[in-house]
């Protein structure tokens, strides 16, 4: 395949069958490999779309500063796009995210402002919103509410899935900003109304949920519950076990959110009625490189689980 430049190669990611993990020929699991994107994650799609929309709206001129609450992939994607388009990027992220993320951001020339670990990404969002208010010339694209995020999936991920798997019965993806599920989910349900759209949500340790008050919670502005047909909470032990299973059984070296997605996908496969076909597409958001230092792939599962406690592992 040939492209004029890196950004032109965005999307068009492969959908690979999982013959060993699939229960049988009638109930098949498929993995959409989003690590096959310019910076190695699904976030290249929303990052590119959000920047392109901001440029079109006249919000970004060369030398402008972009600010974003992000503990990883979005920051990395934005760092790449900012570098290529001539913008400065500041990322606000919780202090307890893996070393590789910070190193990669800094290598792309982004600046990092750390927010306290307790309160996780809620706190990063709060800090970023506060900074944006105090620096009105900075542009906060705000992945949690920017329609460009969902649009990237409505116009990219969703159509690609349907083109590759017209018989799709289930789509499972991680739930974070909700962009993937809102965009691809909406597209799929419009074009194939019987499809199930299922969210796999990581369940973190207590520290991450530490809040002064339960009314201080956060629901991404993009989230429209009606687009989903189900939502599963997946623990770190289950996500880890499935991430390793994906590697050991199908040879796919995926990030830990993919373990969440596989866990939910396998539960759906099990529920598939006898005599009915199921084609379950799983979104593999990224590969495992950034998570190696978390110890997720080495030692016993128990050791790996202990290491993930308190971390934002997906």
């Amino acid at each position, binding site marked *: 395949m040939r492209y004029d430049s890196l950004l032109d190669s965005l999307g068009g990611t492969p959908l690979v069958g999982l013959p060993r993990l699939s229960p049988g020929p009638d109930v098949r699991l498929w993995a959409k490999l989003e690590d096959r994107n310019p910076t190695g994650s699904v976030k290249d799609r929303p990052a590119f779309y959000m920047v392109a929309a901001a440029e079109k709206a006249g919000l970004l001129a060369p030398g402008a500063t972009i600010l974003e609450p992000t503990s990883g*992939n979005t920051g990395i994607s934005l760092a790449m796009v900012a570098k290529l388009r001539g913008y400065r990027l500041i990322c606000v992220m919780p202090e307890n995210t893996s070393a590789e993320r910070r190193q990669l951001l800094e290598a792309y020339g982004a600046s990092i402002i750390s927010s306290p670990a307790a309160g996780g990404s809620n706190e990063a969002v709060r800090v970023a919103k506060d900074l944006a208010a105090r620096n009105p010339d900075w542009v906060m694209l705000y992945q949690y509410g920017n329609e460009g995020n969902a649009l990237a999936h409505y116009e990219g991920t969703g159509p690609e899935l349907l083109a590759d798997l017209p018989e799709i019965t289930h789509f499972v993806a991680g739930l*974070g900003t*909700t962009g993937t599920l809102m965009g691809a989910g909406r597209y799929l349900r419009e074009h194939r109304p019987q499809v199930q759209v299922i969210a796999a949500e990581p369940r973190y340790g207590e520290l991450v949920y530490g809040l002064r008050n*339960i*009314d201080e*919670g*956060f629901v*991404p502005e993009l989230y429209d519950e009606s687009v989903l047909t189900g939502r599963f909470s997946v623990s770190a032990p289950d996500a880890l076990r499935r991430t390793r299973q994906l590697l050991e059984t199908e040879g796919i070296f995926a990030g830990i959110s993919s373990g969440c997605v596989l866990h939910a996908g396998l539960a759906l496969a099990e529920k598939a009625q006898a005599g009915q076909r199921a084609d379950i597409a799983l979104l593999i958001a990224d590969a495992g490189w950034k998570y190696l230092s978390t110890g997720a792939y080495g030692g016993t599962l128990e050791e790996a689980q202990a290491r993930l406690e308190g971390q934002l*592992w997906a």
Partner: protein
Amino acid sequence: MAIEVRIPTVLRTYTGGAKSVEGSGGTLDELFSDLDARHGGLRERLVDNAGLRRFVNVYLNDEDVRFLGGLGAPVRDGDTVTVLPAVAGGAR
């Protein structure tokens, strides 16, 4: 009949510090009322006039109850209910 209900840190003032309490009921609604009898004020943190509070997520055997009938979701002996505050999605 016992249904385990896991309580997030922020609500443990209602349970005397307990991470997990037991209750009974045929639906989630009944379960919450049952818990409230022993842990006064807990139900009000979870439920308002419109149903489940916006920033409260409740999972029945790891599935979001909003897709299982909300407060009307049937619950059974041996089920696990997990209450969590809504937080920004981890590493994005």
